[in-house]
């Protein structure tokens, strides 16, 4: 499917990451937004509030982030592509209903423009400290998808992708930005609507009496077909473990089937979902791994290290979850070491270590947040890693 031209602001613009994210949502076909303002994500909501009336979208400022996330689920079941935007403290409040979205397989997009934490932390300054919370923040076994843009252009691009993935897999998708990328202004090219691929949810259109809201067959893989509320199909949506009719069925057999499918529909499609970019990884002795703003700082360190004669490459994650596990395992076979550069004291590095599994050395260039790394500090860790 192609994008609805109504929401697509075709042309070259000079936009910050937050505004580019909002435009990405509009281009993807998002027409329901519920949120509560919080720095440094507010500009996304502001732009949506300004633009939605022009495209027939609904913007609601809710009383808090719990209600925002609940409204987003309602919007999705009502048939709209739905999103919310927040930062760390609000992200924490959304966790309960993110779990409900995972369990009820509700397509939705959650944007987190990360600031320094924990708690209220650093409202106006960057962090990448919610990466594990994105993956594990709600209780129980489930999978989500998380993308990590490093420029305003990519904020636009991956927000579209986030909506597409959420509709295709019926899963909450997180756009994990950071304050730097959110507030950085660069050229953003928005293509014509006919060049933008959008995925619209697969709807059930069979006989009403036969509809089983959580039934999967060989045609729809592990993702059941959806029916929008009001379309005349009877369905039941519950956070309790449910059978294919959507009714509570609380026993080990149904739990096994239901939860395994929630995990497998993402995990077994990692090859199709996970995206990354590589910079001279094949020839490298040492590979930097980074994402978001840290990947741009890491590039500076990489140039400095090359000038010192070090054979170094960069593996930049565009998708953080599911983690590009297979590719990391391949790279680990031929490099001596990895250096993870992230604005936290060690989060994605634990996933890197798990996948490398001792095949190469793994080092961390940590930073508590509040600012980006000094490239010199990364260079220092690179030189330690080469000795």
């Amino acid at each position, binding site marked *: 499917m192609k994008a609805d031209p109504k929401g697509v602001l075709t042309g*070259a*613009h*000079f936009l910050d990451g937050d505004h580019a994210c909002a435009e990405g949502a509009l281009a993807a076909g998002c027409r329901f937004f519920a949120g509560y303002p919080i720095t*440094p994500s507010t500009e996304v909501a502001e732009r949506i509030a300004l633009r939605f009336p022009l495209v027939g979208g609904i913007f609601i400022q809710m009383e808090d982030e719990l209600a925002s996330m609940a409204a987003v689920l309602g919007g999705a079941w009502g048939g709209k592509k739905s999103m919310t935007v927040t930062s760390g403290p609000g992200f924490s409040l959304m966790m309960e209903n993110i779990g409900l979205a995972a369990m009820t397989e509700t397509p939705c997009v959650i944007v987190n423009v990360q600031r320094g934490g924990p708690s209220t932390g650093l409202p*106006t300054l960057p962090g990448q400290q919610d990466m594990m919370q994105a993956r594990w923040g709600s209780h129980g076994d489930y999978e989500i998808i998380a993308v990590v843009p490093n420029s305003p252009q990519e904020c636009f691009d991956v927000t579209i992708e986030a909506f597409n993935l959420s509709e295709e897999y019926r899963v909450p998708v997180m756009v994990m930005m950071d*304050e*730097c990328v959110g*507030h*950085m*202004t*660069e*050229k953003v090219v928005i293509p014509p609507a006919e060049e933008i691929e959008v995925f619209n949810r697969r709807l059930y259109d069979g006989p009403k009496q036969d509809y089983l809201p959580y039934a999967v067959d060989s045609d729809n893989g592990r993702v059941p077909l959806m029916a929008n509320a009001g379309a005349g199909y009877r369905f039941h949506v519950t956070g309790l473990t449910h059978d294919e009719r959507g009714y509570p069925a609380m026993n080990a057999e149904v739990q096994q089937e239901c939860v395994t499918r929630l995990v497998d529909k993402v995990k077994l499609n990692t090859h199709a979902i996970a995206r990354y970019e590589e910079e001279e990884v094949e020839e490298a002795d040492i590979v930097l791994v980074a994402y978001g*703003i840290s990947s*741009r*700082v890491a*590039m*500076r360190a990489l140039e400095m290290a090359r000038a010192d004669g070090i054979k170094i490459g960069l593996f930049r994650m565009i998708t953080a979850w599911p983690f590009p596990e297979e590719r990391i395992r391949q790279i680990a076979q031929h490099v001596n070491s990895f250096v993870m550069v992230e604005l936290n004291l060690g989060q994605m590095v634990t996933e890197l270590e798990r996948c490398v599994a001792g095949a190469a050395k793994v080092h961390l260039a940590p930073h508590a947040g509040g600012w*980006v790394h000094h*490239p010199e500090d990364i260079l220092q860790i690179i030189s330690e890693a080469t000795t």
Partner: protein
Amino acid sequence: MRTEIRFSGLGGQGIILSGIIAGKAASLFDHKHATMTQSFGPEARGSACSAQLIVSDEPVFYPYITKTHVLVSMSQDACDKFLPDLIAGGTLLVDEDLVNLRSRSGSFKMFEVPATRYAEELGNRILGNLVMLGYFSAITRTVSPESFKKAIPGSVPQRYLDLNIHAFDRGFEHGISQGKQKKNKKSAKVIEER
């Protein structure tokens, strides 16, 4: 070539807008790479604020200033705060009525324009940032005046567009006429300090 520019002044003078217009002109119309970042915090009106702009022929990865090549200052506080980061041989542009170079350290080229006074003559001091952008374009040539003229529409309220263009021209002409005088006598004060 990578040029690192800092626009600075007081909150309310349109400093951030200066960075946006210059970045837009450089990236959309001069077809260079440009990244703009701003001081983001509780400083609304009345305290030192700044916009950082990197203009480069190559893609910009590291988005922040590491050494300031060009410092534009429209307030004393901002100049005092950011001048120490100007590289040797760098360029300083100031509003001559608002900035008095008290603490001189390092060596750099200084250019002066009565930006706010010109803006007041045009009817509104809020145009001071546009006068400064015109002057910036004439002196540094980092961003072409043609591209600025394309970037200003859409960045300022439509009903004040002509006034903004006038303000830009006023600053640009001031820079050009200084340059002509320069052939006879030096217009830029070259500050040389130990």
